[in-house]
Each structure stands twice: as C-alpha cells, then as structure tokens.
C-alpha cells in the first residue's frame, strides 16, 4: 500500500528494537473481549485507477451536474471561482499544515488568517472578525449564545422567520439544549421581518438575516434602532455576503454581531460543505467571542509577526467555562474566501455585486412580463420569490431536460408559499437563460 512505507524487513527490525515478536503483540494490553473477532466488513481495497473509475461512475449518476445551470440559491450560491484560487489554496504548505500552534513556522497560515479577519471585518463593517467557525448556521447559534452571555440575565432570543429555515433549526438545536427560548418574528406584508408586537425587551439578542431567505433586503438601520431601544443586542446574519459589496453593511446599520455563511466568496457549492462560518463583532465584545483569533505582535528581534491570541476564551484553557466548545476553524475555506476577496478587490467586488443585483432585477422584469407575479415588490439582491399563473412544475421539468434547474419550490419550508418558487440569478446566469425560462412559461 503506497501510503505505508514499511518493508517487511524494516518491520522485523523495528519489532526487534521494541522487543516484540509480531505486530499483534504490540496490542497485548488490549483485553480480548474488546477486539474484533474477524476482519471488518468493508469493500475490497481499490488502487488509484480503480478508485478513479469508481468516482467516474458516481459522477455519472448525478442527474444534475456542473453542466446544468442551477438557478437555486437558498444558502449556497454559484459564482465563478478563478483557477488561481484552486491552485493557490491547493498548495500543500497550506493544506497539510496543522493549526498554527508553532508560530515561527506557521507565519503563512497566520498572516493569511489575519488578512482574512481584516477583509471580513471590512466587508461587514465590524471592528473585529474571528478566524471562522463551521458554517453560517452554527455561527448564528454561537452569536445568539454570545448575546445571552453578554446580557447575563435574560434567557430568550428572537430570530426573524425570514432567516434560512435550516439556520433556525440549528439555532433551536443549540439553544434548546442549553435551556434557552427562541422566539420567531413574523414576515410582514412586504417580505421583510416584522418586529410588530414582539416583547423585544425580554430578548438578550434579536437576529435578522439580510438579504433574507427570500432575497429581500431588510431595512437594517430601522430594525437596529428599535432592537437597541428595547435593550437587546442586534445580530445580523447572512447567507450571501457578496451583497455587502453593494448594500449598506451590518456595521453601518448598527449591528453588534454580524455572522453568516461565506461559501459564496470563492467556495464551490459542494453539496453544502465544506462551508465557512464568518463571525464578527464590536471591539467591546471580543472577549465574549467564540473561535480562534489571530493577532499581530513582534518576535524577539522586533520583527512583525502573527500568533493565535486571546486563547483564554477557548476550550483548551478554560474547559467547561469556555466561550464555546469550538476548536477547529474552517482554515482552507477562510483562506479561499480571503483569496477571492483579494482577487476581486474593492472595485471588482462592487462590480460583481451590482451585476448580481441587476441580473435578479432583469429576471423579475422578464418573468413579470411573462405573466408571473412577484410575491413581493420589495428590493431583493440576487434572489426573488415568484408565483406563476399556472402550475410551474411541468415547465420546470421541461427546462431541466434542457439543462436549466429553474428555482426552488418553497412548500416544504413555508406551507404558505407552496407552489411558489425562489429563484437565484448570479453573474453565472446569462440573459439568454432567463429569456428561455420566460419563453417556456408563456408556451
């Protein structure tokens, strides 16, 4: 086996050094009752070429593939990823390194994470970002737990019902386990979160997703003012951070914590993972923050360098009193997002965000002309919710046969939106594709 370098002679020589007669004898401290009686039941080992063929077959069984235009967002977005990122992030110096506990020989990872933190903080308009957490959903759960830690006395949080449905599930998993209550805030008549009658003063934190699950851009500034007036922390979550290249960022709108999913910044959809939990907050809350942080310092000769810092918040020092149990970050994913942000630059990010906004605007206009109704006329970023005049399912079936996956039916997430479709149009979708959908609708 090519990953195992030992020859039989070397094994024999090494066994002699350790005073054992066989490899089995190395395990003499293990009681018989704990052992497998027979060999584990696993498929026969494949060599590299057999393995490649096996994956060719798996790939072939994907009815929808990269050759399709998939007009679904809902938490995972298709954007062009430059080849340079794949090449750079694949460098084994980054890929095969561990957590940078030895900073003298980990400055590559450390500087890259410091840059990621900085670009993330700038994108979100926040003071400080961590080196990432698992994904957008657990980031939101961690943000709400952080809000509860900061408030100390309260045991409730509120979350917009226009937050990604899976995020709300993850939030409930995390917060109910710890004995906290999660209140959902309704979606108003304009597709935006309605703070309405909620007893916000009982909440440690209130979380609003923008653009929300329906792509609708929330009026964060106004929401933030109301939430702060009630004495709660204002958490802004997101699934499509590209939007902040064009829209007011969470910090500008008064957010105390901003968190969400960074996949759209240079990571493939990859069936939902590996993901990237982005997490940022105001300076004054940094010691309550979960996750790893990289900070600037100097070495013993006064040269600039970077280290993991503020570890006294973390589980390996604080154990059960830690701010979170999180240990790893999403290293390579954060690295790729930083490379993507660096490749776009401020100018490119704005252009790309604008293009996404305009594509969705075009899609809305064309489908409207084809007789569809926009469920809300409120501005959206690159997604929008559509109601068709008649059953869209057969049209969608025809489109799929032609390589277009047209939108996501929302009935399973929101029964009130059964039969309505959430569309996502990014820069990867050409105008002709949108026109084709409108044509099929009118056929």
């Amino acid at each position, binding site marked *: 086996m090519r990953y195992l370098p030992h020859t039989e002679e070397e094994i024999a020589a090494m066994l002699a050094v350790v005073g054992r007669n066989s490899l089995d004898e190395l395990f003499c401290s293990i009681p018989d009752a*704990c052992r497998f009686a027979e060999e584990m039941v696993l498929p026969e080992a494949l060599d590299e070429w057999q393995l490649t063929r096996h994956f060719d077959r798996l790939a072939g069984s994907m009815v929808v593939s990269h050759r399709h235009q998939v007009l679904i967002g809902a938490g995972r977005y298709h954007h062009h990823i430059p080849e340079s990122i794949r090449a750079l992030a694949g460098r084994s110096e980054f890929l095969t390194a561990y*957590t940078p506990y030895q900073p003298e020989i980990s400055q590559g990872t450390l500087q890259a994470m410091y840059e990621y933190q900085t670009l993330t903080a700038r994108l979100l308009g926040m003071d400080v970002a961590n080196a990432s957490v698992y994904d957008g959903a657990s980031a939101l759960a961690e943000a709400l737990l952080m809000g509860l830690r900061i408030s100390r006395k309260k045991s409730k949080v509120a979350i917009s019902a226009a937050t990604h449905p899976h995020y709300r599930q993850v939030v409930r998993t995390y917060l109910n386990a710890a004995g906290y209550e999660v209140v959902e805030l309704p979606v108003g008549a304009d597709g935006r979160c309605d703070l309405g009658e909620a007893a916000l003063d009982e909440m440690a934190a209130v979380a609003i997703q923008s653009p929300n699950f329906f792509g609708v851009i929330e009026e964060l500034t106004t929401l933030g003012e109301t939430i702060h007036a009630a004495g709660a922390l204002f958490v802004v979550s997101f699934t499509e951070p590209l939007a902040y290249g064009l829209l007011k960022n969470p910090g500008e709108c008064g957010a105390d914590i901003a968190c969400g999913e960074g996949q759209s910044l240079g990571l493939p959809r990859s*069936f939902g993972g590996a993901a990237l939990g982005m997490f940022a907050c105001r300076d004054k809350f940094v010691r309550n923050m979960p996750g790893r942080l990289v900070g600037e310092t100097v070495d013993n000769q006064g040269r600039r360098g970077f280290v993991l810092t503020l570890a006294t918040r973390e589980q390996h020092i604080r154990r059960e009193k830690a701010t979170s149990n999180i240990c790893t970050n999403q290293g390579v994913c954060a690295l790729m997002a930083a490379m993507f942000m660096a490749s776009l630059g401020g100018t490119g990010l704005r252009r790309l965000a604008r293009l996404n906004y305009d594509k969705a605007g075009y899609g809305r206009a064309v489908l409207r002309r084809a007789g569809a109704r926009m469920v809300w006329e409120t501005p959206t970023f690159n997604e929008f919710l559509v109601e068709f005049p008649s059953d869209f399912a057969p049209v969608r079936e025809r489109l799929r046969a032609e390589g277009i996956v047209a939108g996501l039916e929302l009935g399973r997430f929101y029964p009130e939106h059964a039969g309505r479709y959430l569309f996502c149009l990014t820069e990867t979708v050409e105008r002709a594709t949108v026109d084709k959908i409108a044509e099929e609708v009118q056929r």
Partner: protein
Amino acid sequence: MSGTVEANGMIQEEPLLWEKGSRGRQGMSIPAADVPPVELPAELCGAGPDFPDLSEVDVVRHYTRLSAWNYGVDSGLYPLGSCTMKYNPKINERLAATPELAAAHPLLADSEVQGCLELMYGLQEGLAAITGLPGVSLQPAAGAQGELTGMLIFAAWHRSRGSRRNKILIPDTAHGTNPASAALCGFRPVPIASGPDGILTTEAVAAVMDDETVGIMITNPNTLGLFETNIREIAEVVHARGGLVYGDGANMNAVMGVVNPALCGVDVMHLNLHKTFSTPHGGGGPGAGPVCVTAELSRFLPVPRVVRAGNGYRLDEDCPDSVGRVHAFHGNFSVLVRAYGYVLSMGAAFLKRASQLAVLNAAYLKESLKESLPLAYPRPCMHECVFSDGWLHEHNITTLDLAKRLIDYGYHPPTIYFPLVVPGAIMIEPTETESQQDLDRFIAVLKQIVAEARNNPELLRQAPTRAKLGRLDETRAARQPCLCG
C-alpha cells in the same frame, strides 16, 4: 550533525495584502453586463468595502510567498501528539474536486444527486463497520461538534426515559473540548483522576457514578497514548447506574480493525476524519466529526440522514426523536469525499495495518528515546508516547526550549504541555506514514538536542534562529490585541 539540518535557504518578505496593489487593478474575470442596470433605493446602498485592488499576479505571488513560511506534512515529519498528522493522499484532493460533486447544490431533489447520496451512504456504512456502531450521522463539522451532538443524544435519551440528570464524568486525561461540549448541554463535568499508571480504574468511576449522572466521556486510547484496559468494566458500572458511555474517537488511528468500540461498551462515538481518515488539516480546518451510535440510539441522530430507497438513496428527515440539525446542510461534504476515498483505498486489511504501523512507529520512538528523555508512564504505548521534562530543569531548559530547537533542525515540534497531568509533557505521535529512516533521523536529532541541553543550553533558549521569525511575544499579542489591520 550539521548534515541533518533540513531548514536552510531563502526566505522572501511579503507585505500585508492592503500594503500592496493599486486602485483599478483586477485579479479575476468578471463577466460583462448583459442586462440593464436596475435602480437601487439610496437608503439601502452602501459604499462597498475598502479592499485593495490587486492583479492576478499580485495575488498569486502573495500567497505563494506566504505558503513558503509554512510547514506541512508534505514538508516533513509532523509529530504532533493527539493530532494524527499522517500523509494526506493527493488523489483525494482530485476526488473532492470532481466537477459533478463540487457543483452539486444541496437542495436539489434526491433523484438528481444520487452520486452524492451513494457516497455518503457508503461512508456511513464504512464508519459503522469500523466502530461496530450501526447508526451514523456525517453532519458534525468537526470533532467538537461531534461531541456536542453526542451530548445532545445523551440528553435526548435520558429525556425519553423521563430521567433528569445533569452530571457527566470526564477523566483528567480528556481533551478540553469534552467538558466544554458537555457544558453546552447544561451538564456539569465531574473530573475523575486517572490511576498512578495513567489508566482509569473501575473503582474511581464506581465511586462517582450515581443517579444524577448522564454518563461518562472517555477517550480510548487516552491522551497519554495508553489503552484504557478497564473500559468494559467501566462501561458496565455506568450502564448499571442508568448512564451512557461516550467514546471520544480522536485516537482511533491506534486501533482500527483491532478494537471494536461497540464491544468495549461504547454507546456513542465521534471520529475525526481529519485525523484517522487522512483528510488535510488545512492549517486549522475544515475537519469532520461524524457520530456513530448503537442501534438503540439511532433515532436520536441529527437529520437528515441518507437511507436506502429501492435501488437508490434518499435523505430521511422524518425522525421525530432526532436532536435536530447541527449544520445548514450535510456537514463538510468535501471532507467526507476525501475520507470515503481513503477508506476505499485502504480496505479493511490496510486500515488495520495502518493502526499496527502507527503503534509500531510510536513504540520504536519510545524505545529509542527512553534513555534520553524521561518517560511519563512505563507502559506499552499505543500510537503516541509521552515524555516529561524531568531532568531538563537541572539545566534551566524548558519543554518549550526543546521544542523550538527542533525547528532549527527542520522539524515541526511535538505537542507540548499536554496532557496536563504530565509535567512539561512532550507528546509524540509519528503516525504510520513515516518510514524507519525518517524516524531514525528524527531520533538522532532529538538526541543531539538533548546533548546540546547539557553542553550548550543557550542554543535551545535562543531557538529557533533558522525560521522566518524568532520567538514571538504572545503576551503582547494578548495584552494589546491587534486583530484587524
């Protein structure tokens, strides 16, 4: 000895991203607009972030230079104890980039993504075979999230039996994540001291296991690299008092194909795919921490899970007793792809052989170094061996000094000051992918450093001198945090 120095040569400087570039440069293609601009209400419009504008060449040089300041498994031996820094096969990177899989949207219909589901099902089955525990969730994104999922399952099981308990037993050799994960579920950790030989005794567990305790979290082999030989008796004590046994599988690389965790009495266990199953650590992630459970506990696993449906597969979300979701979608899928590639490449025989060789390598190191460094526990070790700082004190040398000196010889240091129960611990885990020659060279270097500690201790105190930077001021970083440029 200078002949063995592996670190040498040119180190290029590189500024921070925003210290370079020029407004208007572009580092990637953006498609031309083929649609008209749409009006955006002014009150929603922002200014856009203050990012530097860089060319593609700027970005490529930047990250290539940064990468040169790193040390990875591909650079050399990476003997970090408890981290299992084994070789990360190249083919698995390509498999994870398979276009059909990498482009798969997680909300497509089951019938449209059979390849993804078959892969996940295959990995679930593989991990079930390896642990003897038939219920598997691939959703947890890392070991710590696997632990949390396990604790959620403990809580759900007790709740389903109407039992209200809030204590959890955690030995002093546990990872720090164990108590932190348990605390997230409202459990209060009760520490148990390991016995004088580094092994947990059945009596110590029996003395604290009571009707208010949900169970025990136990790492086996433990963080001293020793097999918990009393595991079955301990599990019996815990089960008899109505508790469950959690197996932290961080050290599974020692015992694949040898130990059947289910036979040890383990009810719930997580595996670290980024350790045992060879997926790259990536400077901190992404990892994956699947959870394996007994048939009885399967109904509590996170949703959705992949199940068989006719000739194909589907995602099953209909599970009312489930603890819920812990990830927005299916966990770190691209990590699962790599681990699946690894399991298929190894098969049952080579997985077992990998564990045997991991243990052989650790035993060989221990045997070769025990005259040079004081052993923490004179017992047969599994996949890692732990030394203490013992005589280093006499020369006013710390474990840290010794670790830093290894850098000057071109090696990544071992894990140090962990586990906490060993003073000045030096914890070495070579893994099975190191050859005897590679180990011999490392042993020779360590012996050389031990000699230096006696004869020229200043070399250790000043180390490293051949890395990009000397020792960094961590106190300053924490006292005056500068986390954002």
